[in-house]
């Protein structure tokens, strides 16, 4: 935490993808990096970055967003996995929609603000988990029949694509996070995960993790 944000290296670790998923969706990937941080309200420097971002993203950018390569790749992937990106918006589209609705990117907390900045800047989907509540490496797989999901009474439908560690599902892909696995008050280390799909270069995942990491260290 002592070095300057721009001197920091993301050092992303590639996650695993189950063979069944890899065969169906070539290009699907996940990369993670662990970051030491504090939770709570964002510092003024981070809020300032959000304000700058709000000034740069307006109506024209929002209209043209879905034609840009990375947001388009996520829209296509949403269609491929049965989601309608106009109902369940892709992460970047959801953030830009909120920017249009609220008139600015609203500051929520340090981690969410860092994710907002990185997602809007690069277009890549990011998720955050509590490192101390994750066992082993993180990857993507299909849920099994009757698999439990923390915070949900009924089991997950079989075949749901989930982000998982080596023991359990941590969250539904582009959906909710399992209860107790996300970042909470008092979390000391955050596992930032970038999800890549076909059409999103690996360098974009690395860049998104770097931007989120440097924002967290602002």
């Amino acid at each position: 935490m002592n070095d300057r944000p721009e001197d920091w290296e993301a050092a992303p670790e590639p996650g695993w993808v189950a063979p069944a998923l890899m065969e169906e969706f070539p290009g699907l990937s996940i990369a993670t990096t662990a970051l030491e941080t504090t939770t709570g309200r964002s510092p003024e420097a981070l809020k300032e970055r959000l304000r700058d971002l709000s000034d740069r993203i307006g109506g024209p950018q929002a209209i043209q967003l879905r034609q840009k390569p990375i947001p388009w790749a996520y829209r296509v992937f949403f269609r491929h996995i049965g989601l309608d990106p106009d109902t369940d918006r892709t992460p970047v589209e959801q953030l830009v929609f909120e920017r249009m609705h609220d008139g600015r990117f609203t500051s929520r907390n340090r981690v969410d603000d860092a994710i907002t900045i990185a997602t809007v800047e690069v277009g890549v989907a990011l998720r955050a988990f509590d490192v101390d509540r994750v066992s082993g490496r993180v990857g993507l797989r299909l849920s099994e029949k009757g698999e439990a999901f923390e915070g949900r009474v009924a089991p997950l439908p079989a075949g749901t694509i989930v982000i998982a560690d080596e023991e359990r599902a941590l969250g539904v892909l582009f959906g909710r996070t399992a209860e107790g696995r996300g970042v909470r008050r008092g979390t000391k280390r955050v596992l930032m995960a970038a999800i890549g799909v076909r059409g999103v270069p690996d360098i974009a995942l690395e860049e998104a993790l770097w931007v989120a990491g440097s924002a967290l260290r602002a």
Partner: protein
Amino acid sequence: MPEELLERTDLPEVIAPEESLVPPVPPEGLDTVLYEHDERASRADLRRQIAALELLLARLFDSAFPRKGIEFKVAGLGGPRVLSVDELEKVRDGLFTRIQEVRADLHEFAVTEESNRELIERMTADPAAHKWVRVYNEDIGERGCKNWHATPKWGPLGMLMGWWRVKISSGCPLAKGQPPPDPDRWRRRDSAASGGGVRLSDARSGRLRPGHRGPGPMTGPQRPGAPSR
């Protein structure tokens, strides 16, 4: 001759198949690999088609702006999961249908906008025949706040004398940031709520909505709403 051929039951094409149409079980060891491989190729092909159609829809979305009332949604099938061939076909067909509908809607808009452009020409040529008519940029499918308004020159005097002209206004309010709180905003909101006033946001921006276009009879521009289907 064709009838005779049809009556001949000894032709192999005419003889009803006796064996089942269900394909035989694949030999031991092959299991469903062969079939699965075929389906995977079909799914990959469908995904490519969906990607191309999604790009087409995105381009239409861009060109449709600032027109309102066009539906771009294509229902999802519940996910995230691996969709079957049938489901991917549904997504592809849904996208294709939506693209056709959006194109039809845009065509309707284009027809209306063209007639509004002609109205502007007629207004300019003969303002007195189009008293108080106002056409906005939005009515001709363009961005911005510009409008053409048939008004009398020199106010009431022009009205009495029949001196009419078309006034072109760029219309957009200057960007000044958020205004300070209005001390009597509650009173004004109450009056608007009771139906007696103009919406505050409209009044601030200097832009009135349809229905607040000024006094007098008018033959306004056509408004393409959500086209009926």
